């Protein structure tokens, strides 16, 4: 069974540019989460999809961030325009069930550097 994959693994862009991150969850996992770790701090939740619907987007920092999951399969996270403080590692995770007892499986992350 393939794990969660993320693309690209690393992205370097200039302030003001646009970047789109992609996440492919484990096949059959309806729940997809985005997290990010900024400046070596704790990993923080961004949002949660159940299939194609946004279940919880309370962690999205501002309207420069747009997440989509068309068709309930892969998801994209677009940052437009990027700011310096957006630099960090963006993780995607998926789980088959939503219940709190079920672990989430994480991808390798996308390291975003905004210069």
């Amino acid at each position, binding site marked *: 069974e393939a794990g969660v994959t993320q693309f690209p693994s690393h992205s370097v862009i200039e302030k003001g540019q646009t970047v789109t991150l992609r996440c492919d969850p484990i096949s059959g996992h309806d729940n997809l989460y985005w997290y990010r770790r900024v400046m070596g701090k704790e990993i923080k939740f961004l949002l*949660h999809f159940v299939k194609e619907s946004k279940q919880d987007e309370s962690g999205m920092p501002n309207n420069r961030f747009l997440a989509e999951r068309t068709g309930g399969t892969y998801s994209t996270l677009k940052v437009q325009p990027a700011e310096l403080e957006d630099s960090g590692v963006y993780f995607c995770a998926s789980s088959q069930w939503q219940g709190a007892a079920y672990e989430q499986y994480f991808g390798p992350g996308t390291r975003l550097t905004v210069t």
Partner: protein
Amino acid sequence: AQSVAQPEDQVNVAEGNPLTVKCTYSVSGNPYLFWYVQYPNRGLQFLLKYITGDNLVKGSYGFEAEFNKSQTSFHLKKPSALVSDSALYFCAVRDRGGKLIFGQGTELSVKP
């Protein structure tokens, strides 16, 4: 609000010695607690979880964690550390909605 604290940024251990990575939590209701590990240039890997039942939880790679309700702690332990255990360790609590709330991470360094 739920939160997790990992009081040590770094833990240094000699190979073969026991290791402990500390985690305390603050939640309302019953906690669902997790440990994840991140090896260099890799994603987060699930190690173990506490949902209910035995306070001592066994996980992958010989790790275990002890749930202590009175001390609101969930420390990660291993009887004999390996150099290959060197990595970044994250403790997390999961809320009812499903999202994970992480601690800031602890860098474990095991020296030969």
